[in-house]
Each structure stands twice: as C-alpha cells, then as structure tokens.
C-alpha cells in the first residue's frame, strides 16, 4: 500500500506542474501514468514539435518542456508509477483507496485527474476477427522478440515502429511489411534499409495494401491483404503485428460517477474539484465555461487544485498563501534555503 497525500493521474505537463504546486505547499504526492514515460501528449504526440505559447519560454519542444518540468519537481522526490492505469477508486471514510491495472494500491486523501484525453492505448485493426487473436498471434507491441524466431511475421504500418521492427526481425524471421501507401512516415534511413532488404529478398514489402481478413483456428494461419485497386493476396503467417500509433481512451474514468460531458469532466473554477468531493480534474480533461485547452491553462488549474487538496490532506491546518521568493517554508521544501 502506497500512502501519500495526493494521487495524480497523468504525468503530462499539467500533472507534473500540479506535483510542483503540491510540493510547494507541503503536500506529498505520487503520479500514475499508463505510458512508460512522463510527458503525456507532449512526449507521445509531439516530442520534437516546438511549442510557442508557454509563458516566458519563447520556444521549446514537448520533450524540453517535459524535462524542465521534471527538473522543477526534482526537489520533491515525487514517486512515479509508470505503465499503470488507474482502474478503481473507493471511498474509505475520509480517504480514498485506489487500485491500478498492475495491482498497486494507494491510500490517499485526494485525487487529481490530469488525464488529458484519456490513457494512450494502441490503435487496432479495423477488421473484426482480429480481436480473437489478440495477445496470442496478433500483437500491437512486442515484449519478447524471441517468440518470432524462425516464424513468418506480417507487420502493418509505415511509421518508425513498423520499420524498425521489420528491419530487426528480418534477421531471424521471415518478414512481410504491409503499408497502405508508397510513402512512409518513419525515418528516411529506415525506409531505405527496408527497400534494400526487399531488393535482396530478405523481407517482402507490400505497399498500397491494407488488411482484408485474418483466418486461423486458435492462432493466425493466414491473412488476406487488399490492394488499392482491389486485388487480394493471401499470405501465410504465424504472427501479425500492427503499429498504428496510439489513441486516447477515457477508459475506467467513465465509471467513477463523475459528471462527464463530451469526454471531459465538469469542474468548478474555484478549485477545480469535480462533482465528487476530494476528486479534482485539471488540464485537457476538465471542462468549465471558457475552458482553453492550453498547457498554460493546465498550470493555473493545477495550482488551484493543489490548494483545494490541502483541506483533505491536513484538515486541522490552515493554508497560508505565500510566495516562493520570500517563504522560508517553501524554500526549505525546494532545498534552496541558505
């Protein structure tokens, strides 16, 4: 059981800055995120794209913003629980019991949902029968590549994941790479490598094809792919891999009894608390009149939600408003007091 004052759901910029604000006012927190790294959409969707509207930072990339926020919260030694999705919240007298997908449990005074547009999940094939083979011979990520040795693998996608795995697996497996067009979004050097391997017969590249059907008994035995012009090819294979990036899903958040409207959670603008006492929502996932989905708005919302958390964590104390320029307590927490 992890006991802390506040559990933050989501390690995007809003969640990270909220952790900072909690630290400044002397509350402890831990952060859960479904991705394998902090940064949320900034790191997953646009790590290299410059952002121009962070106050006082004329230009920075999603990755730089994330790294700076991590640096900013370093003094507070915030514990991260990555690759975990929060599944269940249960009220226990005055606190909350939280359970994650990986079986972790938390005992917290309040919860801040900074979940963006939901947790990132792999995008799946549109063909219905694919579901049946998930987790056995149809995969959206690779945990143990040794299972592919000497097998025939059909990889779908045109981004870096598809290209990199096609190149790597072509050493030990028979690889078919199938993509919907001639162009690729992955790195040019990888595209060239794939084409070279195709020319040398070490990999089979099929462009302008998409999946049409999969068949097999317990495991996949063959697939059919369809060309833009309508021609259908049957390919025998042991595994199918789909790399279509990630999509955001609200998931279990829908089941917690929160007022949800168009995939966002309604909050008050005084402290960003939801309709349930002790649960706050900030960043892209919250909605209120005038809401702007900007990172800077998320920072403001996090600052107020952090203060809203105070009365749940320390019901017998009063929070005094202080500035980091002058507050001895805040400077001690930051580890900068001389």
């Amino acid at each position: 059981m992890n006991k802390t004052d506040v559990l933050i759901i989501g390690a995007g910029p809003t969640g990270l800055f909220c952790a900072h604000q909690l630290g400044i006012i002397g509350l402890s927190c831990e952060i859960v995120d479904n991705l394998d790294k902090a940064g949320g959409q900034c790191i997953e969707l646009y790590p290299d794209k410059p952002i121009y509207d962070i106050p006082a930072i004329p230009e920075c990339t999603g990755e730089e913003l994330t790294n700076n926020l991590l640096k900013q919260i370093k003094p507070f030694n915030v514990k991260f629980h990555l690759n975990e999705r929060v599944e269940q919240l249960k009220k226990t007298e005055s606190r909350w019991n939280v359970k994650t997908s990986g079986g972790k449990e938390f005992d917290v005074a309040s919860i801040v949902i900074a979940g963006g547009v939901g947790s990132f999940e792999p995008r799946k094939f549109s063909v219905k029968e694919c579901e049946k083979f998930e987790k056995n011979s149809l995969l959206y990520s690779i945990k143990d590549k040794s299972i592919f040795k000497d097998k025939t693998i059909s990889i779908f996608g045109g981004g870096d994941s598809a290209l990199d795995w096609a190149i790597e697996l072509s050493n030990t497996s028979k690889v078919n790479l199938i993509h919907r067009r001639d162009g690729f979004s992955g790195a040019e050097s990888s595209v060239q490598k794939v084409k070279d391997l195709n020319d040398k017969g070490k990999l089979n590249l099929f462009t302008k094809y998409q999946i049409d059907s999969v068949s097999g008994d317990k495991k996949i035995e063959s697939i059919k792919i369809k060309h833009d012009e309508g021609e259908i090819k049957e390919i025998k294979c042991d595994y199918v891999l789909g790399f279509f990036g990630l999509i955001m899903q609200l998931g279990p958040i829908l089941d917690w009894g929160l007022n949800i409207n168009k995939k966002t959670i309604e909050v008050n603008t005084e402290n960003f608390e939801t309709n349930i006492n002790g649960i706050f929502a900030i960043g892209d996932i919250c909605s209120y009149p005038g809401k702007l989905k900007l990172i800077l708005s998320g920072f403001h919302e996090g600052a107020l939600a952090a203060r809203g958390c105070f009365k749940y964590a320390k019901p017998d104390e009063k929070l005094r408003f202080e500035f980091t320029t002058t507050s001895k307590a805040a400077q001690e927490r930051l580890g900068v007091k001389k």
Partner: protein
Amino acid sequence: MAKITYHTHDNKTYTIDVQKGLTVMEGAIQNDIPGIDADCGGGMACATCHVYVKEEWLDKLPAKEDGEEDMLDMAFEPKNNSRLSCQLIVSDELDGLEVNIPTKQG
C-alpha cells in the same frame, strides 16, 4: 458562411452553415455532430477527425500539408479520399462540401 454536409456512418445527414475561417472539424464539434472526436484539438496529432471527402470535391480542396498523410496512416480505415477535417478550412470555395464520417475514429 458555407454549407457543409456531414453524413454519419448510420446514414444521418447534417447540413450546417459553418462560419468561414473555422475548420470542417470545428463545424462538426460546435454543432454536436457525432463521430468526429478531434482528441488533439486540431493539432494534426491524432487522426480522430478523419473524414472521407466526396469524390468530386477531392481536387477542389487545399493540398495536404506535410504530416497529414502520415497521420492518416494511423486513421481508422483510411482510403484515397481520406482527409483530416481539422486541416480543411472553410471558405467560399468549400460551400457545398460533403464529407462522410467513418464508423469510428480509432
């Protein structure tokens, strides 16, 4: 204003006067037309505002910018007439545009 017609996958049709300067995506979101999610808010980063453009309109639309085709690789059942509706800015030239919304966005 320009008239934009949205056909949903369950054969409902919505014809909306969309203000010039807004995107076809925003026209759908502001009018509660189901089936366009636009998770990233128009940043060409998620492919959940994917639409199929009626064939005769394909050549009349502004060309795809770098990145739109890459994002369409991620879309649900992309076709040759696929576009991201966040990249289609409504103008007089688009008056009468018709788009079909896919069965789902992801």
